[in-house]
């Protein structure tokens, strides 16, 4: 198990390293002039040149990259224009928002976490529950309703659902305040009421996918020999379904869920844009629009870290659910 973990972590690190190199190349090497986008039209050439110097854009790419990575691991000095000493993990300095990128991330990450984690709990419960029920009650009206629900959800767009939800609950019925983020610890009620629409919208679309997936898995599992054997042995239905079938059917769901949650933590771009919440996704989009290189780098890297970590977690969970995996 330890060997498995070490191996997995090693390949995860390798992936992250490759992501950092690729992102770096994409944003620092591909554009003709990375800075020109960073500075609005009224920016004079001297200032532009100074920014280039300060960002080290005149250095060879490898030096720039090494400096960036060194900053993350040990921290580095960025010069007085960029706030001086930058402690590890140093993600650089943003000229656009005039603060250390780390501080920006620290401010917006809780927003994304507050959106994704409750939404994920909701969509997993709803999706897997719906899928299981419709698999067990296959062919009944309940099943048909569930299939209809999931097909509809899978065919809708988040911004569309979001817009309709906003129109109905905020602007027409005035049941909810305009979505906004309040830290959970400050005021749990406002935290929830400000985010609930985002949760519902995300959960609706995602649970559709999970309902389809878990229904198909459950049906396949139910037709397998070991489940029939368990039934034939005289085990009670709830026990068979709960203990034997669910466990086997849930594994693919776990894989997909891990990837989805990992990806969502890196920024729910569409959700945040629809509901006007300033999380990782919005920050990334704004950074791209403003040509804010250090912030783009940071958001992409953090998003990758979430996906990779989620992958590792899924593998470990797999090993826990399915003992055969450990031998591989």
């Amino acid at each position, binding site marked *: 198990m330890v060997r498995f973990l070490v191996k997995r972590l090693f*390949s995860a690190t*390798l*992936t*992250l390293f*490759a*992501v950092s190199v*690729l*992102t770096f190349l*994409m*944003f620092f090497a*591909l*554009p*003709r002039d990375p800075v020109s*986008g960073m500075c609005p039209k009224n920016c004079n050439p001297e200032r532009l040149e100074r920014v280039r110097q300060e960002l080290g854009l005149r250095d060879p790419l490898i030096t720039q990259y090494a400096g960036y990575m060194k900053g993350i691991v040990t921290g580095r000095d960025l010069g007085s224009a960029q706030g001086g000493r930058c402690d590890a993990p140093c993600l650089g300095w943003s000229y656009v928002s005039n603060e250390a990128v780390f501080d920006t991330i620290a401010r917006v990450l809780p927003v994304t976490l507050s959106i994704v984690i409750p939404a994920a709990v909701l969509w997993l419960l709803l999706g897997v529950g719906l899928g299981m029920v419709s698999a067990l009650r*296959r062919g009944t009206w309940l099943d048909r309703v569930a299939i209809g629900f999931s*097909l*509809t959800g*899978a*065919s*809708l*767009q*988040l*911004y*569309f659902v979001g*817009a*309709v939800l*906003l*129109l109905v609950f905020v*602007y027409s019925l005035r049941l909810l305040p305009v979505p906004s983020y309040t830290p959970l610890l400050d005021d749990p009620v406002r935290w929830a009421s400000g985010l609930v629409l985002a949760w519902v919208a995300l959960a609706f679309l995602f649970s559709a996918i999970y309902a*389809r997936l878990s*229904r*198909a898995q459950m*049906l*396949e599992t139910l*037709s397998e020999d070991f489940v029939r054997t368990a039934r034939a042995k005289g085990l009670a239905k709830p026990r068979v379904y709960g203990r034997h079938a669910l466990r086997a059917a849930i594994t693919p769901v776990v894989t997909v869920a891990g*990837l989805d949650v990992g*990806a969502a933590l*890196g*920024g729910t*771009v*569409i959700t945040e*844009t629809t509901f006007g919440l300033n999380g990782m*996704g919005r920050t*990334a*989009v704004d950074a*791209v*629009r403003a040509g804010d290189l250090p912030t*783009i780098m940071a*958001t*992409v890297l953090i*998003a*990758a870290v979430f*996906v*990779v970590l989620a*992958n590792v977690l899924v593998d470990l969970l797999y090993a826990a659910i399915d003992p055969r995996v450990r031998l591989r």
Partner: protein
Amino acid sequence: MSLSPVEGVALAEIESGGDAGAEKGFVGRSPGQLAWARLRRDRTAVVSGAMLLFFVVVALAVPLIEMAYGIGPREQFQNRLDGFGMPLGYAGGVTGEHWFGLEPGLGRDIFIRMVHGLRTSLFIAFAAAVITAAIGIVLGTVAGYLGGWVDAVVNWVTDLTLAMPFLIIALALTPTLALRFYGQREAVPPAFQIGVLVAIFALFGWTSTARLVRGQVIALREREFVEAARAAGAGLGHMLFRQLLPNIWAPILVSFSLAVPAYITSEAALSFIGVGLTDETPSFGRMIYRSLDYLQTDPAYVFFPGVTIFALVFAFNLFGDALRDALDPKSSR
């Protein structure tokens, strides 16, 4: 696999024919033909398939429709808008002349823009789906069949691709590429924008097909019919394309039919965050994105493109599911 209906259905009686005599012109029913017969018996499949066919025909016949309709996608009808830029009349200005009404603000005809948008969206989605399927099939079969380090490398690249945040990179890459090729001043031609979109989808979309195909190939690799071909001296090409691929067409086809609607929605999502096509090229995503601002003031503007794109994606999803049922009668969705 041939989905040709010609032989399959006509010779249904063979199944019961057994080993009787040497009737002339025996044609067996291939698994593909059996699936086709099942598909034709499935009401959902027929209905959703007809819908898809309709959409595709409309997309292909855009010039004809434009000619018959007599209005171009960029024509503005400001005289039919009120002082606030809202279309005059009911339901967003629906008249015999403007079937789906007019856009608020610019006063362009919604129907003809939707027809054009349908073509753009379908083209992007199909192109992206074909390319991703091709990449996925090649990488998946090679990785699954050869195994060893090739497999390890492909797997790792898959993980890497999945770890890159798609939307952010697409958002960042599109303008960068346009800038790189056309500079600050030049107008970027729509064909280039569409090409970039398809390329980005291809870059990020191949992983699921590759994983699917790899799994299928690994399951088939040790089957004896594959070994029989090896024992007969078959080369890699024959093994992959003649022996293995015909057996994994079914899941590939299903994943293809589900990938197309996914790309339609992705294109719309990219438009929503402001990447991709400019307003000049009509596309579904762009229309929905613009229409959301008028959700309260001109719901009809949201309604027509919103319902159409929903119907399109819904039909694809329905058809994909029906196809899965038909190709794999054991699966019971």
